[in-house]
């Protein structure tokens, strides 16, 4: 978090030196995005606060914690495949889940499937690329996500 803030300020400084107008436009653009996201973000935080109160941490750790292994990844992969959460909401959510004891590897699998596998958007994808190509791409991505979780578990 701190590193991102420092980078932002440094780049902001450079940007101002090169082009004040453009910098202001960029800041405005960013803050507009933030404001449009704010209602959903607040709602997500409210729901997560309630869910994490109802689901004890031990249960979360048991199913998606460090020692959950393959089952944890499978669950994370399934959740990620069917969920349709924009990344700007998903990452803060993952930040919260990590704090509650979910393993980094499960998070990696969840993020990868969330972003690469779209069960709900499959019909839309098929419109562009045809059913066969779309299903193959989604299946490969699903397997790849679990594989990524496995490799990450070797490092983390």
């Amino acid at each position: 978090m701190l590193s991102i803030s420092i980078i932002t300020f440094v780049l902001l400084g450079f940007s101002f030196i090169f082009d004040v107008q453009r910098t202001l436009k960029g800041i405005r653009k960013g803050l507009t995005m933030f404001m449009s996201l704010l209602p959903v973000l607040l709602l997500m935080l409210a729901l997560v606060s309630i869910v994490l109160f109802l689901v004890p941490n031990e249960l979360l750790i048991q199913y998606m914690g460090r020692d959950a292994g393959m089952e944890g990844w499978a669950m994370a992969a399934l959740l990620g495949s069917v969920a349709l959460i924009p990344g700007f909401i998903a990452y803060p959510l993952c930040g919260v889940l990590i704090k509650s004891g979910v393993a980094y590897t499960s998070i990696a699998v969840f993020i990868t499937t969330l972003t690469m596998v779209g069960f709900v958007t499959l019909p839309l994808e098929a419109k562009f690329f045809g059913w066969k190509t779309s299903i193959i791409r989604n299946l490969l991505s699903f397997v790849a996500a679990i594989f990524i979780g496995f490799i990450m578990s070797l490092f983390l």
Partner: protein
Amino acid sequence: MKHLQKYIFSLIFLALVGLSYLFGFAAGNQIGMNFWMFAKEMFLFLPLMFVLIGLFDVWVPREKIEKHIGEESGWKGTGLVILLAMLQAGPLYGAFPFAYLLWKKGSSIKNIFIYLGAYSTMKIPMLTFEIGFLGLKFSLLRTLITLPVFMKN
């Protein structure tokens, strides 16, 4: 009024938390504490992250790269496709129309898959979020592992 409507559920939530505090309702208090713990960090850093993304948006000449893409093949084409994907923002289904265009322009199906893969996991705006919330080590590792996995696809 319309603005307020978008916040209606959050407002109800906050009101309930406030009432729990007033009447000493333990469960409500705990939920409120959870919310505060998650929210305070986010409101400190999220605006900054979005400023970074906004800056990125105004400085990177996406159109210029798009013009050159689709024609090259081999490693150069793949590299360009990944680069372009990293510069985008938005959800995956937003990438389908452009990927379709690439396909029509003659890009190989392999590059299309790589584009969609890189788009979904390596977008720079997403990476800033990932680094912010999950740490640099996690991000680097995930990106480095993800990339070759796609190339194999």
